[in-house]
């Protein structure tokens, strides 16, 4: 066989070629740094602002682009670096961010859900308090007091909220409901009746998607059963006993019943697929945050459904949660050791301004954290959200990082995953109690 190789002309690779290739490879690799690939010189003298987020597509990216345009106009010499990384509600971005922070190489500002999700960063000393920004620019006067109180940690504020989303929204198709004589439910009992009616009519009563949407559903059921005060008590220190209470058992049993009305292939769907089931008339209801509105009413060119609010789709608070705003918020932080701290502070001040929030939010499909928004800029659903935001009681979201720090949220997610396989409610509650014992500090 070797004889075959010797005579094989293809085997005779001209050595000069190999040598040349090798030298080229080495020279190129060594020359890359010299050619300045990947900036070597950390010029803190030059003006730059690197902002890290997971806003890579759709309305979010479009909104961010608009903000960047305004920033560039007011800061023409300051280069804006949009370091957005995609991946499932920021999971890739959060991982990269965690690594950069651990390695001491933070961006100048990064996106995070306002509330407990930031607690790990705070405890690790990776972000600075921003109370002074609130005071200096009057955010503490124009953002709701209950919001500010709910995002304080040990008395200090650590991020500036850009938007507010609502999680406890029930979506439906008015035509489907009318055709089947189903009324929009207001109480939980009415909801169960409506679900049964939909089931009898051959529809999917409640469209659900992959596991995190099951957790989203869980939190709305719990808020509906426990009320905002009961809900808040679950997240206070040493709350394990609250998790073991009868009202939580009731909530979990309601959840169990509601799950019986969901589609069997939920785990293979994205939340957009579940929403589509409602607008296509295949499902009666869907419980999802109000980013669903952006998908339903947005332009076709952006990959949305371009439907008419009120006609093609309708919304209501999740039964039993009228007057409660299950809120979550995208916010930006001030990392410790940010290279361009002054620019970062200016960025945060800008984000909290009326101009920024009224520019970003209509495009993104959310409402400002400020209470002085101009309603004329917002679509039909968002108008109702704006008025609700002014009067409703606030309850922080679990699934979207307000009430529970990351470790607790993960433990609940694991308990939920196990429950979805076994459908054993007592075991589920026990696991939730254990998670609270471990994490409620």
């Amino acid at each position: 066989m070797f004889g075959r190789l010797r005579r094989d002309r293809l085997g005779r690779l001209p050595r000069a070629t190999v040598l040349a290739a090798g030298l080229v490879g080495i020279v190129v690799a060594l020359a890359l740094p010299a050619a300045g690939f990947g900036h070597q010189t950390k010029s803190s003298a030059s003006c730059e602002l690197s902002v890290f987020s997971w806003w890579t597509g759709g309305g979010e990216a479009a909104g961010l682009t608009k903000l960047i345009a305004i920033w560039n106009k007011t800061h023409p010499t300051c280069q804006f670096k949009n370091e957005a990384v995609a991946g499932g509600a920021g999971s890739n971005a959060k991982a990269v961010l965690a690594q950069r922070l651990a390695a001491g190489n933070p961006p100048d500002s990064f996106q995070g859900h306002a509330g407990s999700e930031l607690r790990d960063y705070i405890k690790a000393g990776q972000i600075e308090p921003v109370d002074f920004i609130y005071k200096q620019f009057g955010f503490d006067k124009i953002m709701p007091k209950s919001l500010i109180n709910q995002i304080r940690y040990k008395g200090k504020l650590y991020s500036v909220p850009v938007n507010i989303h609502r999680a406890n929204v029930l979506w439906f198709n008015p035509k489907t409901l009318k055709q089947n004589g189903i009324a929009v439910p207001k109480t939980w009992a009415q909801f169960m009746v409506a679900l049964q009616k939909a089931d009898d009519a051959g529809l999917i009563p409640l469209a659900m998607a992959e596991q995190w949407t099951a957790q989203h559903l869980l939190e709305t059921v719990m808020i509906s059963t426990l009320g905002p005060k009961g809900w808040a008590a679950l997240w206070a220190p040493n709350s394990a006993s609250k998790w073991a209470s009868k009202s939580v058992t009731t909530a979990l049993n309601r959840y169990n019943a509601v799950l019986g009305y969901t589609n069997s292939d939920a785990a293979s769907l994205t939340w957009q697929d579940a929403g589509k089931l409602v607008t296509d008339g295949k499902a009666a209801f869907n419980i999802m945050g109000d980013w669903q509105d952006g998908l339903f009413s947005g332009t076709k060119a952006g990959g949305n459904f371009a439907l008419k609010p009120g006609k093609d789709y309708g919304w209501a608070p999740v039964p039993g949660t009228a007057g409660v705003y299950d809120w979550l918020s995208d916010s930006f932080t001030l990392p410790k050791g940010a290279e361009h701290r002054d620019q970062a502070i200016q960025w945060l001040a800008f984000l909290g301004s009326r101009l920024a929030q009224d520019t970003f939010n209509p495009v993104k499909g959310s409402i400002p954290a400020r209470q002085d928004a101009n309603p004329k800029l917002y679509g039909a659903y968002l108008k109702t959200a704006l008025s609700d935001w002014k009067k409703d009681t606030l309850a922080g979201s679990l699934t979207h990082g307000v009430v529970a720090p990351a470790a607790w949220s993960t433990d609940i997610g694991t308990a939920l995953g196990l429950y979805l396989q076994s459908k054993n409610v007592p075991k589920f509650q026990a696991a939730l109690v254990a998670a609270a014992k471990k994490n409620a500090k």
Partner: protein
Amino acid sequence: MRKIRRWGPGLLLVSPSILLVAIFVYGLIGWNAKVSLSDWRQAQQTSGFDTSAYGELFPSGVGELGDYAGAVITGKQSDTLSTDPAWIIDLHHALLFTLAFVLGTLFIGATLAFLLDKGVKGEGFFRAIYLFPMAVSFIAAGVVWRWLMNPAPGDRSTGFNLLFDKLGIGFLANDWYLGPTWGAAALAIPAMWALSGYIMALYLAGFRGVPEELREAARMDGASEWRVYRHVVFPHLRPVTLAALIILGHISIKVFDLIVAIGGKQLITQTPAVYMWILIYDARDYAKGAAIATLLLIGISVLIIPYLVYTIRSERET
């Protein structure tokens, strides 16, 4: 002195590699092992010694061993085990996935190579087709396979279920990766799709590396073609199979992008590699994430060390 002059240059030439690997592989493995034995369970890095991370992953005593093994094999949650139930499920998924992926890819690759062995018209064409899946990034392949393996029932079915229905073999429609028993094995299908071509190439080379004279000699002795394969060709393929086993085995334990592209980070499709990610980057439980990494490394070593020893020994013999 002359001896050193003989082998000195060689040692010098590989020393940069030795140094780099020592730092970037063993140094990091050491760091990882240290973290796994620490109490760095939240965002604060501390220096205490703590084996609780491993404690959650292993059975608490010999008594639990039977339950543990049973739970891993069947995937059924046990009420009496003290170990992390998510870990048990991950191991179960990993077991199913690895068996399906490794055996499936070996079989498909070997069969394709067998079919191509004697030379067919358009061999280059077939080879390029079978190899192409490996060129497609797992992230994109995952999205497509999520569509294809869609488990939606009835009139909402898409993907393969719809195709089966249209072709009249609708009874093959199933829940794919959501199936309670074989779901994890279904996850192996995209991986099989991606790697079969490469394994085929390995085997094809193996088949063709058998000197024709040996085959002829056997034929002269009156052996049928099948027996020629069985007694002359297949023994030559043992090293190929071992190499393939190692490559597939280590991909199988580390695979992450594909799983997440199809099933996200849900428990129903979770594997140890995905759980490790969740622990490190979501839950900030660095010790437990590092413990899982260490266990994965040990698990792969159990696969490779016999192969390495075999390789080195068989070389010495020739």
